[in-house]
Structure formats: C-alpha cells, structure tokens
C-alpha cells in the first residue's frame, strides 16, 4: 500500500504493525500493552502539545485507548496505517477536550513556542526514518508552521485559519500545501 522508500526497516515495521492489528482485531487485551509501548510517546506528545497540561494529557490518552479499543473493528487497514488512525483519534479527543474546557480562541492561537510540550525533549520514535522536531521546524518557515499547527493541533479548518489570521483562504491553502510538501520531502 505504501511506497516503500527504505525497504528493510519499513517492511519490518509494517509486519509488526500487521501483527498488532491482528491481535487487536482478535480482542487480545495483552496487545494494548504492546500498543502502549509502541505508540504512547508519539500519542502523548501530540496530546500534550494540544492540551498543554500533563494531567489532562494523561486523561485524554486513557480515553483514547478506550476509544481505540472499542472502535477498533471500524479501523480499515486498507485506508491507512494504524498510526495515522490512532493519532487522529487522539488528536480529535484532545481537541474536543480543549474545546469542552472552553478554551478561548485567543489561547489556542498563542505562540507555539510558549507551549510546554515544545520545551520537552522529543524522544526517539519508533520509525527508523524519524526526523526530529528541530530539523522539521528548521525546514518550515514560521508562516507555514503556524498554519500547519493551527490545522493539525488546533483542529481549525482552513477557512477558520483564514479568518483567524485575516488571510485569504487561497493563501492559507497554498501555505498549508507548501508546508506539507516540505514535510513529505523530509521523510523521503
């Protein structure tokens, strides 16, 4: 399904993922421990980046695990990687959380550099081609980064970002697209 750029580690990772998916599909509770060990750092990091408070991040991570377990039968491996799916579940729950806590728009658009999550050292993730946050942010210009963060971590639509930043929708789309192009080049 995926274009394999780094054949050996990538296919190995895929194989592990296929096994994990199979165990989760079989309702094997022990698989959730493996799941946690494999994905918790990535999921927790993103959740923390969104909710900004550790105790809330913990709650969201647990809620996400419950949701992932219950909605697992609806996960379709043909449509994408397990990582993408679970990351979206976590992102959605975290975004719901900050909205349910009636975070004001102003607080959502506060400078990214102030977030607690950013100051924490990013741990090496499970993918061999993993690229650190520092390198990624060096490659993105601030405008691109702001838009990606609002879209990805803020749960904003492109129209909302346009309104928020007082930019034409076309500009937002162009920047988002450019930013993602930079990111995808980095991982190739």
């Amino acid at each position: 399904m995926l274009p394999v750029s780094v054949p050996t580690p990538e296919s190995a990772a895929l194989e592990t993922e296929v096994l994990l998916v199979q165990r989760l599909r079989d309702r094997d509770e022990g698989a959730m421990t493996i799941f946690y060990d494999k994905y918790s750092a990535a999921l927790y990091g993103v959740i923390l980046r969104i909710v900004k408070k550790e105790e809330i991040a913990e709650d969201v991570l647990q809620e996400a695990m419950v949701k992932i377990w219950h909605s697992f039968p609806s996960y379709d491996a043909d449509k994408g990687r397990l990582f993408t799916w679970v990351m979206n579940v976590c992102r959605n729950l975290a975004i719901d959380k900050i909205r349910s806590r009636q975070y004001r728009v102003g607080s959502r658009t506060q400078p990214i550099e102030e977030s607690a999550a950013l100051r924490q050292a990013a741990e090496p993730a499970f993918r061999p081609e993993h690229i650190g946050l520092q390198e990624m942010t060096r490659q993105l210009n601030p405008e691109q980064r702001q838009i990606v963060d609002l879209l990805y971590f803020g749960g904003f639509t492109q129209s909302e970002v346009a309104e928020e930043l007082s930019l034409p929708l076309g500009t937002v789309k162009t920047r988002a697209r450019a930013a993602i192009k930079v990111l995808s080049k980095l991982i190739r």
Partner: protein
Amino acid sequence: MNIQEYIESGILEEYALGVLSEVERAEVERIARQHPEVDRELQNVVRALDAYAEAHAVTPPADLRERVLQGWQQAIRETTPAATPPANGTSTTPPPMMASAAAPAAGATPDGAVVRQLPAQESNGGRTRWLIAASVALLMLSALGNFMLYNRLKETEANLEVAQTEQSRYAATQKAALNERDQQLRVLRNEAFRAVELKGTPKAPQALARVYYNPQTKAVYVDVRNLPAPPAGKQYQLWALDNGKPVDAGVLAAATTAGDSIQQMKDIASAQAFAMTVEDEGGVASPTLSTMTVIGNL
C-alpha cells in the same frame, strides 16, 4: 478530470489534516482508488503529517504507563458490549469527524459529533458509574458485615450470660458439696466419734456399712460401703440397739445407700449396736428382723 489540478487543489492536505466532511472524505478515497497518482500523493501527505506528529513525541512519565493501562482495562471491563459504541461507518474515519462539532460552518455532520463525543462521555460517565456502583457495593458489604458482627456479638453476649449462670450455679453446688464434705471430714476426724462396722448378715454377706456415733452429742452418721439396692418402694432403715431394744435412727437417702455421701441420722441417746433393715419407704416403727442386712456392735 485533471489529476494534477486535483492534487494541487489542496484537498489531499485537508484530508490528511482531518478537516474534510465525511462526504468529501469518501470522495477523496474514491478518487485515490481510481488514480494511482492521487493515491501516491495522498499517502505522501498523510505520512508527512504522521512524521510531523511523531516529531512531537514525548515519552510519558514511567508511572503513567501503569495508570493508563489499568484505567483502560477498568473502563473496558465496566463497559458491557451493549454499551460499546457500534462500529458504524462514521467511526471508520476519525479525521472528518473532528471538523463537525467545533466547526459547524465547515459542513459538519451532526452524526460525527455524536460519535466523537461518545467515548469521552462513556469513559467519564462509566468511571463515575463504576465509582458509584463500587461505593454502593462497599456500603452494602459494610452494612452486611456490621449486621453479622452485631448478631455475633449478641450471640456471644447470650452465650456468656448462660456460661456465667452455669458457672455460678456450679460454684454454688460445689460450695454446698464442699461444706458437706468439710462437715463429714470433721465428723470423721473427731475423736469423740466412734466408728462401728456394720457387716453383712448371711442374707447379704457382701454388704458393708459404717456408723459414726458420738455418745456425747448423740450424733449419728452413716457411711455405706456396699449395700444391695433395695426393692422398689423399699428403703434401708437404721436402728440403734439399746439394751436389745431397737430404736429408729432414720431411713437412708438413695445417695447414701448408693455410697455417694455420708448422711447424718437421728440422734441416739444410747446404743451398744447398730443394724439396718429393709422397710417400706419412709420407715416403720419397729424393724422387720427378717430383712436385716447389716449389723455391728460398738
């Protein structure tokens, strides 16, 4: 359709960012299935954002692992399969759902909002429900435990009362018995008392009894060693023989006859010998000589 234009429209990025509605999302997936170029580009975009997410990885505190895994297990235990959100179409694709609740303007589906809210509510509500259920169960257990302990306490108190009553009754009995023995002992040890062996007549050769007689105080005690059991309705009667004339010294109680205790008899003014006969219960005025069982001289 112009594939290149489609790819450059920005819709694939929106797909990966999860800002598309369910319908738009399905459309992107349909087109990607038809056009390998679109599919390849879509995967690139998705992987780019995955990598961006991964770059933010923060290893959670070590103690969080246990808490989260335990909390998860508890949550899935308390959620019965019926309460599990059904695996419906909308939940197969989380990203479009996020657009719905918070951004109604972006063509959101109300369904998405519901599906998305469910797990959080279920988890929180479930936890609360579980806590309430656990509290009620604990309270009931505690009440039951108290009730059982109370019953046991009452039972114990009742038993103790019975035991104390029995103990005091036993003590009283023992005290009386001890007094009696003391008195008997005084009799036996008193020099003034003279022991008279009453031996069995040919009628009952094995019979044996002893009389203690105090000529000064006139007191008479009888101590049976061995006497045949008297026939029903009969009793042994002790006689003092004073100058050959029988004088009634009283009848023997059943316990005395059995040899269980020494019995004080009627005072006798003067005697040279004692004998026992078997008489009707309550005793008679003059002895039936044919039933004489034991006899002995002073």
